[in-house]
């Protein structure tokens, strides 16, 4: 199985772990990731309003490139996933945006939303299968109580993202089970960590992140996993009232699959 892979800018720098382990795990699972050539930043946040055209163009370009390769487009970062998937939905449902974006980009072939955007976890569920994944686990996280942190971007808006039930998701919990851990369900797993507000109002980001961690801790979590570099930053840097370790889900995955090399200890521990 081959996917067009879109890492996104943060995975090249601050969130190298998210990327490295995603690639290594994919290899172990027999999934081929072909990085898209000359990809551009997705823009970081989806512009919610309908008259923002330019800010969505780079995403359309990425989507069109995946279409050329004929593969589904795989993302790992929640934010990139949200922006790309929603932009793709807009191309399909918003004729005005489709018209303007295509006219502006002047691609070889008009892009009409042909690419399917898939998140890495969806790939694990649908292409690999959690049962199959379980069979390939060599270092199960036995007895570990792991809290999945979805944040807002993977799930919302539910009708576009169609990732899971936006209020009561279970996909990351299923992943944790497949890796041998014990999922911890806590109410703030789908509430915002504060996101980019850390630059505008640090105290608000601290408040939100602490709230998330407190909720996970109250339900007995040993660690938290996330798919988003910004959530990671907020939970670690702003959620200072709690010392729950936070990992990228790919790191756990690589560890469980035995492809995490010696010396790459869980440095958040």
């Amino acid at each position, binding site marked *: 199985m081959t996917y067009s892979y879109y890492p996104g800018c943060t995975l090249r720098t601050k969130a190298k772990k998210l990327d490295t382990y995603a690639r290594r795990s994919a290899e172990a699972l027999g999934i081929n990731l072909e990085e898209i050539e000359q990809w551009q930043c997705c823009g970081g946040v989806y512009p919610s309003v309908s008259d923002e055209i330019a800010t969505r163009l780079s995403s359309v370009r990425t989507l069109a490139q995946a279409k050329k390769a004929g593969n589904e487009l795989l993302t790992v970062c929640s934010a990139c996933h949200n922006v790309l998937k929603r932009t793709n939905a807009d191309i399909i449902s918003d004729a005005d945006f489709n018209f303007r974006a295509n006219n502006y980009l002047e691609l070889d072939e008009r892009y009409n939303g042909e690419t399917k955007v898939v998140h890495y976890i969806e790939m694990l569920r649908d292409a690999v299968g959690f049962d199959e994944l379980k069979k390939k686990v060599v270092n199960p996280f036995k007895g570990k109580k792991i809290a999945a942190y979805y944040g807002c971007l993977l799930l919302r808006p539910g009708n576009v993202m169609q990732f899971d039930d936006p*209020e009561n998701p279970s996909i990351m919990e299923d992943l944790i089970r497949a890796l041998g851990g014990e999922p911890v369900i806590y109410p703030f797993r789908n509430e915002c960590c504060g996101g980019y507000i850390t630059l505008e109002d640090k105290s608000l980001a601290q408040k939100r992140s602490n709230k998330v961690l407190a*909720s996970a801790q109250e339900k007995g979590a040993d660690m938290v996993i996330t798919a988003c570099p910004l959530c990671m930053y907020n939970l670690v840097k702003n959620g200072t009232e709690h010392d729950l370790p936070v990992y990228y889900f790919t790191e756990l995955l690589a560890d469980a699959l035995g492809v995490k090399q010696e010396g790459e200890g869980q440095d958040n521990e």
Partner: protein
Amino acid sequence: MQRIGVFVCWCGSNIAATVDVKAVAEAAKGQPGVVFATDYQYMCSESGQTILKDAIKEYGLTGVVICSCSPRMHEATFRKAAESAGLNPYMVEIANIREQCSWIHKDMEVATEKAIILAKAAIAKVQLNKPLVAGESEVVKRALVIGGGIAGIQTALDIAEAGYKVDIVEKQPTIGGKMAQLDKTFPTLDCAACILTPKMVDVAAHENVTIYSYSEVVDVKGFVGNFTVQIKKKPRYINENLCTGCGACTEKCPMKKQPNEFNMGFDKRGAIYIPFAQAVPKLPVIDADACLMLKNGKCGLCSKICEAHAIDYTQKEEIIEERYGAIVVATGFNQIKPTQFEEYAYNTCPDVVTSLEYERLMNAAGPTKGHLQRPSDGQRPKTIVFIQCVGSRGDSCREKSYCSKICCMYTAKHAMLTKDHYPDTDIHVFYIDIRTPGKNFDEFYRRAVEQYGVDYIKGMVGKVYEENGKVMVQGSDLIDNKQITIAADMVVLASAVEPDPSARSLGTMLTASMDTNDFFTEAHAKLRPVESPTAGVFLSGMCQGPKDIPETVSQAGAAAVKVIGLLAKDKLKNNPCVAACNQSVCNGCSQCANVCPYGAITYVEKEIRTPEVREVRRVAEVNEAVCQGCGACTVTCPSSAMDLKGFTNRQIMAEVDAICR
């Protein structure tokens, strides 16, 4: 050539404001056959009808066109008026220039032009109309009520009291419906069981009533006055004639772990069970999915205990066929399970319940004997939050678009009853609007606020979550302009009501139309609220829309009156717009009989005499009492022998021509 009169109605300003009625009348005058044309303010009024009658006599009219509202509205009115003036009623045609013209167009010129075309089409049709005489058919003097809740019980009782036979079909093992599950009823707080159970006994004891419990309607054929219905009796595995209802079998059943539906799953019942103490008929039923004997032939304990030898594991499903003159739909409602609204944590937190579940938790005959205990740990909740409008009044695909109507009142009831039992309970109600339009309703709600000190918070809840053993409710208080979080012990969701899912297939069987929410539609929203557009099918209770008990009971009575009015007739006038065979060109190919959904077409050997031929051959004959006039045969006939009276090929072609020209 007909002598046609054209009457253009203003409908006050409804038509006249957008259609130049004078111009329409003027244009009609120039049409072939039109000898008289006029306009009037309200054609349907007494004086409007007089104008029509006088003109028929004065001008010797043989055909009439009324340009007015939809024929579904007043066709019958005008036909009756014409008949009283000596004209055959089927010589009247309506041009719909209100619903299909003046109300949908804004520009006077455009609307007038269209109205003239519609008038011309109707005139062209009337040119070809022929006087029709309606036949008659027998009325079967028996009614069927589908659903045995309070609506069905009341309708059946009223029909039975008038002296007609009536059958109730109830899919549950007992009648009583949702009302039997309720504790007290608003706004008088009388006990639901105390007012319902005597009615259940009355209806069961009535000599004119037959109850088919644990049964479903599986097929409906026929038409008003003469329906043939198949009822499937599901096996109870109990011989009804032998069983004494002692209940000994239910006590000894080893499979005691089945969730009890009547108590919303809060306690358990056996595989053989009587739904509740006052069930009617008071007979046990065996849950075939749980019974060891039925599943693998091992056990048979209940059969050994039963002194009356009433247990019959071999019982099979039975189909009963019965004929009815009228059918009443009383299929009721369900409260939705708010699993789609996980922001309220219904799935994840056991102490978040729906209001019907709360009703059972409060009920003296319920799983906790009336002691309020929260489901998670059996503790008495000290702080309770009620959330209104869960799943109602929405616009997204999750919610129902309508107001469920009863929630405001039952929540006030729950709050007061809880405070009555446990005065130290803190009660908060999140509401969007309080809707109390009913007699003594607002006073009731005010009592909850003023006397009982229930805290009503205008705002909606954004998230419910569990934290440190409490149910945290985060919502907005719009009056104080604050976001608040209440640490509650229990949360009660007033989730939306929806029509019972069985209604959908029933609607198809009855060819009774439903709205987009699967509520049955009424023949007229204001003037015929208890009749379905399908003749002979009547509506009672929640199957037509959300309503409370008093409204349900009054609608049930109204439906009964309509049924009685129908059954009181010995004969019904048929629709004369039925198929007719031109036997001189019929070749007896049988194609029409194949497509006829009613079996109205038979074949006879008949001598055919035309100028060219004189022979005996097989030709089609239409049974006018059975034909419903759909017209399927007319199109299928290869020799165009079949035609539909009132909608003949030539008439429709004339309309097409008039529109296209």
